[in-house]
């Protein structure tokens, strides 16, 4: 399967004396639905002799029962601890013999298991991946060890200013709904999760009909499809439950969470509000709008003032409406000015169209970023996973680029008015409260969290 070349003038205004642009080609993506309902999305690339296999399921924190916060992360991690055929040691020995990497992860919507290995070992990778998914044994001793490790990681996160800011920002936006919970769970819940709960979560959420297999690297699609169909036969056929509705609390004003870290060398800031779901028809144009905002903020806060080294601004992809977030670590004395700058620039975008030249620069930048994301590696895998998980159309990549190309100042002005809400925004600031209190006084409400409350912040 080949894809047509894109228009060669993706970057109008070629460089001085430069050769004419060559057309980019998007990766040739193969999409299949195998027996049992398994969705497969693949792209072949022979740059290096590696293959990445990524299985994802609708088994993220969104699907955890109340009182079971941490269950998703615990269950997916436990896949490595043995199957009906192999012990944890057997799995580790076999994988390490081949130099393979196995990783598991739970996010808010999905849980994932990933194997990366030499392409010559493809059949082992496919077989092991589906064996872990289909028939994990969940040994009690292993679950206990994983529980202790997850609790330890929660403690680690509670000492990291960036993690603290992330956690409270999510809480500010989503309250007690699933997207407001920490991915690793809560101390109180983790202590009570038992083997039965893990096994039940696996039974309910790890069936083939909800599963996607994403693969990128040096292999042939036909061979991989045959291996997957054969290895996946042992997986359960239960249809996944529908994702629970997510209704975040409305933000009626500008609310700041001030997390007191008296000795912090800088302040970790998060500012924003609930955005849109990944499937929103104007997602590309919204990312362009956020790119314009991000570039203005970076110019002001970094290049003109030196307040920060790194600033990020984006609509975050989720199954339901994900956050719109501006993230930065700033000098403690500049946190207030940063928050005001964010609000001011968002307001400006709601009031004035983006000048065409500025929009063109942001568009070129974002288009370049997007095209580079199809290089081999984790970026390509992420793009393929988006197709699979959000059931995006075959021509999604080309549509996304078209969305960037067609977004004009009038459209961005409308989108800013619909989707930027600087007066109804949440701010999370993790830094020395003594100096931050006055700086955040311009927010309508400031909630202070003492250092002692941080270890169990969402319990």
């Amino acid at each position, binding site marked *: 399967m080949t894809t047509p070349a894109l228009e060669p003038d993706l970057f109008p205004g070629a460089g001085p004396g430069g050769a004419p642009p060559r057309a980019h080609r998007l990766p040739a993506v193969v999409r299949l639905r195998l027996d049992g309902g398994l969705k497969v999305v693949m792209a072949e690339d022979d740059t290096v*002799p590696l293959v990445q296999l990524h299985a994802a399921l609708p088994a993220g924190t969104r699907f955890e029962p109340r009182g079971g916060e941490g269950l998703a992360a615990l269950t997916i991690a436990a896949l490595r601890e043995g199957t009906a055929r192999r012990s944890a040691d057997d799995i580790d020995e076999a994988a390490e013999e081949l130099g393979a990497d196995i990783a598991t992860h739970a996010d808010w919507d999905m849980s994932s298991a990933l194997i990366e290995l030499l392409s010559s070992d493809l059949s082992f990778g496919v077989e092991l991946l589906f064996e872990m998914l289909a028939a994990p044994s969940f040994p009690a001793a292993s679950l206990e060890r994983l529980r202790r490790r997850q609790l330890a990681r929660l403690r680690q996160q509670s000492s990291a200013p960036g993690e603290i800011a992330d956690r409270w920002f999510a809480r500010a936006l989503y309250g007690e709904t699933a997207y407001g919970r920490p991915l690793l769970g809560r101390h109180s819940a983790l202590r009570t999760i038992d083997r039965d709960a893990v096994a039940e979560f696996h039974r309910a959420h790890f069936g083939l009909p909800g599963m996607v297999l994403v693969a990128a690297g040096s292999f042939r699609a036909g061979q991989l499809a045959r291996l997957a169909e054969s290895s996946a036969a042992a997986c359960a056929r239960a249809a996944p439950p529908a994702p629970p509705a997510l209704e975040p609390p409305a933000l009626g004003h500008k609310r700041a969470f001030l997390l007191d870290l008296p000795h912090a060398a800088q302040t970790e800031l998060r500012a924003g509000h609930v955005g849109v779901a990944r499937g929103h028809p104007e997602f590309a144009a919204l990312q362009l709008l956020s790119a314009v905002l991000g570039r203005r903020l970076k110019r002001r806060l970094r290049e003109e003032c030196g307040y920060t080294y790194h600033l990020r601004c984006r609509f975050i992809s989720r199954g339901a409406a994900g956050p719109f977030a501006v993230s930065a670590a700033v000098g403690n004395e500049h946190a207030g000015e940063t928050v005001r700058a964010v609000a001011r620039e968002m307001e400006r975008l709601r009031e004035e169209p983006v000048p065409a030249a500025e929009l063109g620069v942001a568009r070129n930048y974002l288009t370049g970023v997007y095209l*580079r994301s199809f290089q081999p590696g984790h970026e390509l895998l992420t793009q393929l996973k988006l197709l699979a998980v959000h059931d995006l159309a075959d021509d999604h990549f080309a549509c996304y680029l078209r969305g960037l190309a067609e977004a004009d100042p009038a459209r961005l002005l409308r989108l800013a008015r619909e989707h930027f809400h600087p007066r109804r925004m949440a701010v999370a600031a993790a830094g020395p409260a003594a100096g931050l209190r006055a700086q955040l006084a311009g927010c309508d409400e400031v909630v202070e969290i003492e250092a002692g409350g941080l270890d169990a912040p969402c319990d």
Partner: protein
Amino acid sequence: MTATSTECAAPRVEQFTLANRMRVYVRREGAAPLVALHIGYAAGSRSEPARLCGLAHVCEHVAGLAPPGAAAQTYSELIEGCGGIANGSTSHEQLCFSAVLPSHQLTLGLRVEASRMARPAEGLTDAALDVQRGVVVQEYGSRVGNRPYGRSFELVQRSLYPPEHPYHWPAGGLPASVANISRREVETFFRANLAPDKAVLILVGDVPPGAAGEVERLFGSIPPGDGGADGGFGEVAQRPRGVAARRESYEDRVPFARVHLASTAPGFGEDGWYAASLWLRSLAVGRTSPLQKRLVRERGVAQEVGAQMVTMRDASTAALVATAAPGVGPRLLEEALRDALREILSEGITEARLARARKKALTDHFSTIRRVDQRAQFIATSAAFRDDPSPPVEDHYRRLSAADVSAAGRSLFGAEDYAALSIVPRGGEV
């Protein structure tokens, strides 16, 4: 046909040197119309006086500012505006600038680098320098100062390398010294270091046919500097041996203690470097590795244990790192780590374990050269450090026997003349 063997058929790297002694490497490859441009100057933190720790890093940031009259404030903005992405980095060895561009925009990228080389501090004001110093200080905060265990590497280096050694102080600088760097010092650094004879230029990807001519046209007239020995790096920085069993402890806002045992290893690309890399992998990478088995699973004193090797040109820093399990203090963890190390050193590495480590080293290597910019960086480092843009990595690993790798381990940690650094929770609570 898939790449079914571990051999990765690599396109040839073309090489030429301009009259001003700038070395250029070009590798044409790839289907995508992208080109990676990477220029590395032998002007990292080893080129700065110790009292001006951070000068090279500040210069990296200053060199990102476009000259007055340019169409944008920074070179990055110019490159981003044409669909590219740009970055700068400072290590102990090099000051690097890199970009990935649509291939038809290569000329713009080359013009940016030529402009940067020819007139790096043009129009620099004290106010502009002040802003960049502020950014460098915030970068330190993000990467080091405001992160749990963030200072680990900085402290390990300080422990292993004597104060006068160029690897002693951190390449990124320290906030206190960065704050005192003056415009005159920046200008002096640029004059001495941003010169073609201290630079290697790498182009990888869809490189247009006329690229060599463009390079000559844009860079050829820039006069060379004083050069200096050995590719501009100056005298070899001797690898210190025997740190007299130094032990240090440092408090941080962390919930668990962390112990580092660190030693100096051979520099990038030396035979001993490959052996050390395999030894570290065989020791600590993977759940079946000897250290993980002993410390995490059998004794339960660590929640994680791993190995790191930070590579410089004339030496590397090899470290074993263990994070304590809840309730375990740093002393107990350190003793357990030392005991495990002694046992493993006396047992040696088996051929079976070496085979695993070798395979892991190769998959790691391949995963770090997947993207066009990664390949450019690899070529840049190899060319600058070892004058070999395409080292036969797989051959190097395959040639080594279990006896070679065991000997490498004994050389690193056998005489117990290594440094031990503990990061402990503030107030001593565990």
